[in-house]
């Protein structure tokens, strides 16, 4: 019975982390899947969201600026707004150039943000991070606090999913697909391509900020290395590509599936003795990378291929 209880808690934890990653994957799906924009700095937007929500919602502390004791929903909204603003600034500069420039610039933004959170010790407590971050429903009794956290995360994912599905089928979503498929013809049809792209990038960035905020509240702690700049970004990419770029359901399933694989293999490798455990962690990254390459080359559509919208009578 105890064992079953343990497994259930582990399952809840998988769903919670997987759900938070699903927010990131859905955000990337708007950028990459819908619009064809490459964001190599997912970790940066994630960390900004985490810090903003953490600092606004914690009780006042000597170690960092604030805390401001905000209710969590408000701090999460603030996290989304700040991430969106940074996304807007990057997108404005790079949008008239090709995807590669945006990739380089977003990689740079993630790095600069990490430097700021690390060096500005008065604001962020530097490398020691922000702790005692409140968690939703943490005062409930033992299993129910975990259950409620999972419910909150999955509810947010569900809301995002329905909003994104509506957006995808709306005229706005159709124009996005048109831009990705043939930019020139979308432009010729009188669409303001650059502005629409900036919009998609900003919405995606906001969702990554939300994911970061939720992660901060779930872990109750955040430091500048919370999201290892490449592995975190990379994992979200793999999730979306495996699930199916351009498909919201694919993004969610990909996130839950890849998180389960990532987490379960960690349990396995950590059981290996000493040095071997450290080394096999590298093999894990290698295999995930290889999996991405195979998916890209052989199954570029992923598990859930993008559903094409009926174009209607285009005569």
């Amino acid at each position, binding site marked *: 019975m105890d064992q079953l209880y343990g497994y259930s808690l582990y399952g809840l934890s998988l769903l919670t982390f997987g759900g938070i990653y699903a927010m990131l994957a859905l955000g990337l799906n708007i950028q990459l899947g819908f619009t064809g924009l490459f964001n190599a700095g997912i970790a940066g937007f994630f960390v900004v969201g985490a810090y903003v929500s953490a600092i606004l919602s914690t009780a006042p502390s000597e170690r960092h600026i604030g805390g401001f004791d905000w209710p969590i929903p408000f701090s999460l909204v603030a996290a989304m707004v700040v991430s969106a603003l940074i996304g807007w600034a990057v997108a404005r500069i790079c949008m008239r150039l090709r*995807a590669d420039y945006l990739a380089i610039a977003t990689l*740079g933004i993630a*790095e600069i943000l990490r430097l700021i959170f690390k060096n500005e010790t008065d604001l962020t407590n530097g490398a020691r991070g922000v702790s005692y971050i409140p968690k939703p429903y943490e005062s409930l009794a033992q299993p129910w606090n975990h259950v409620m956290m999972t419910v909150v995360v999955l509810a947010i994912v569900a809301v995002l999913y329905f909003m994104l599905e509506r957006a995808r089928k709306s005229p706005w979503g159709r124009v996005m697909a048109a831009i990705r498929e043939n930019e020139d013809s979308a432009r010729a049809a009188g669409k303001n391509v650059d502005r629409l792209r900036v919009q998609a990038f900003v919405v995606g960035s906001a969702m990554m900020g939300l994911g970061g905020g939720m992660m901060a509240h779930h872990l109750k702690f955040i430091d500048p290395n919370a999201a290892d700049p490449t592995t975190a970004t990379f994992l979200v990419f793999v999730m979306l590509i495996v699930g199916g770029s351009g498909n919201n359901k694919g993004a969610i399933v990909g996130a839950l599936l890849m998180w389960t694989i990532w987490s379960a293999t960690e349990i396995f490798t950590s059981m290996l003795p000493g040095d071997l455990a450290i080394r096999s962690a*590298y093999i894990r990254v290698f295999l995930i990378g290889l999996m991405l390459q195979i998916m890209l080359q052989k199954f570029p559509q992923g598990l859930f291929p993008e559903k094409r919208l009926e174009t209607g009578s285009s005569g």
Partner: protein
Amino acid sequence: MIDFINFHLIPGLVLGSIYALGAIGVTLTFGILRFANFAHGEIMTLGAYLTLTMMWLTGWHPLILLPVTMVILSLIVIGMDQAFFKPFRNSPAVTVVIASFGLMLMIRSVTQFSWGAQLQAFVPGIQRPNVFFDALRISPKHILIVISAMVLMLVVHWVLAHTRIGKAMRAMSDSPELARLTGINTELVIKATWILGACMAAAAGVFLAYDSHVSTMMGFQILLPTFAAAIVGGIGRPYGAMAGGLLIGVTEELSSYAWLGDGPLLEPGYKAGVSFAIMIGVLIWRPSGLFRGRVF
């Protein structure tokens, strides 16, 4: 004043030469294969570790082993191109960039697995700098790095300006369709591009390791300044990459000089931000870069 030269200008030139060599490969792949290769940093790292391993085996100086490293690294990089980039020759750029991002982490995990994540050094201990005119302190390794980098840049210039394959590379960078129409063997040019880029990456990795240390993150740490150097110089412009590299390396080091008052102008912790700021400035005001490169 002499502190300025000893501790800022000379290290800046050394760092700049390293960025310049790295950026040559980035700008050529960007110009000819049309994608930003995120794996380029890890290729430099791999070059440093290959040299380190051969030093363990032979005990020779890293600069003597550099040509061997270049050959091995070129073969490895051509293999990578065949396995991971060739299938995407006609795909949208985003797909290739994702593939290169994945390859970056695959190479890094291989280096971490093979050589461990801890720092290593080519030459243990601290080298005493030579002192000229009682005040000018230049370490011998810095002289070696800057001179070797200059020689390599001249070689790149000679290849691009005077050899058949070099001219074909420049033609393809200017217009791939036109190059194909005139009968240039594009796959051969692509191979040559990877070889030239890999040789310069090997040199950049070895010089960087010789200047400081060998670590599995060293290539990634200079990836952003390397990209910045290629963009500042103009995509597809190797001479631009050299100028951009030197400009960024020197600016990074000069940014922490006490220009105003006693403290450094910019905290050294933010040095990495300098290249980014220069790159953003160029993207806003002159996206084609200093040498009027391509804008995609």
